[in-house]
């Protein structure tokens, strides 16, 4: 189940992880990208938490819309429109829901994953955040009830699976085979988002 308070908690935990791992995300991005992922994520989610603290919310959908708009305006790099689109699709899918249950969240996360793929014109196996979002959604849909522990595990394995992939999308694709052996930074920040979600789900 997800409520307004739990979404706020989800974003707080996500922000804490982005701040703690700012240098690590930058390091991952230095290897195969343009070195700005740590800065962009820490900046974006700090602003998300600031925004949520300043406002009062009645429903989950509206909180998630503010998350989306903040990420779109504050991140700066490609992850801004990608995560912004994901949270906007999630927000739209959960519109009018007072209590978000497992099925609602399945539909919402699927819409979010589709949104990322559409925005990035990307699919699985290209060493991007899609390689976390898609397997997580598929796994989630196959569960009978909310399984927080399983969610964290699936997201982590999905992130780690990007290490052996060759990048064909994003800036890392310039490196082609040289990108193999490095975990994708976008898949790592996506793992932090799902790990934080797993911690707040009840």
């Amino acid at each position, binding site marked *: 189940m997800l409520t307004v308070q739990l979404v706020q908690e989800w974003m707080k935990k996500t922000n804490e992880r982005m701040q703690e791992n700012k240098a690590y995300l930058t390091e991952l991005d230095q290897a195969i990208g343009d070195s*700005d992922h740590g800065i*962009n994520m820490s900046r974006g989610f700090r602003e998300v938490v600031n925004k949520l603290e300043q406002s009062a919310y009645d429903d989950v959908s509206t909180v998630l819309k503010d998350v989306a*708009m903040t990420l*779109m*305006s*504050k*991140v*700066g*790099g*490609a*992850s*801004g*429109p*990608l995560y*912004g*689109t994901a949270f906007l699709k999630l927000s739209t899918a959960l519109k009018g829901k007072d209590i978000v249950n497992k099925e609602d969240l399945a539909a919402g996360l699927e819409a979010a994953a589709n949104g990322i793929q559409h*925005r*990035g014109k990307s699919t699985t196996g290209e060493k991007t955040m899609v390689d976390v979002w898609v397997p997580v959604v598929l796994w989630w849909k196959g569960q009978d009830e909310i399984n927080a522990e399983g969610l964290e595990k699936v997201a982590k394995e999905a992130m780690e699976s990007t290490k052996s992939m060759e990048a064909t999308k994003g*800036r890392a694709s310039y490196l082609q085979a040289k990108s193999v052996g490095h975990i994708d930074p976008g898949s790592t920040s996506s793992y932090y988002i799902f790990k934080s979600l797993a911690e707040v789900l009840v």
Partner: protein
Amino acid sequence: MANKIQSSIGIVLVSHSQKVTEGVKDLILEMNGDNVNVHSAGGTEDGRLGTSATIIMSKIEELQECENILIFYDMGSALLSAETAIDLLDEGLQAKCKIVEGPIVEGAFVASVQSTITNDVGVIVEEVSKL
């Protein structure tokens, strides 16, 4: 030379660098004066390198009186942010927007000059594609 007209074309410039979009805007205004409608939407809200879908959205909305709005971008996430900005607009304004493939400096410059002699957006995009 054809008579100059007040353009019904709007141009929005999207780059990671606000200096780039301001510079291109300066070039365009220097050449065309007030006959053109051009907005700079580069950089982030806090002046860093990067793009912001909400800045781009608001610059497009400022041009809503235009019949067509052409968006030029430089690279990478500038395109993603421009596409996201368009998704955030209402449908009427969405229909006016076109993201143009072409170099941002030369492309926007050619489009602006063309926009002072024709309002035919097809002709303008065709000229940009010749670059």
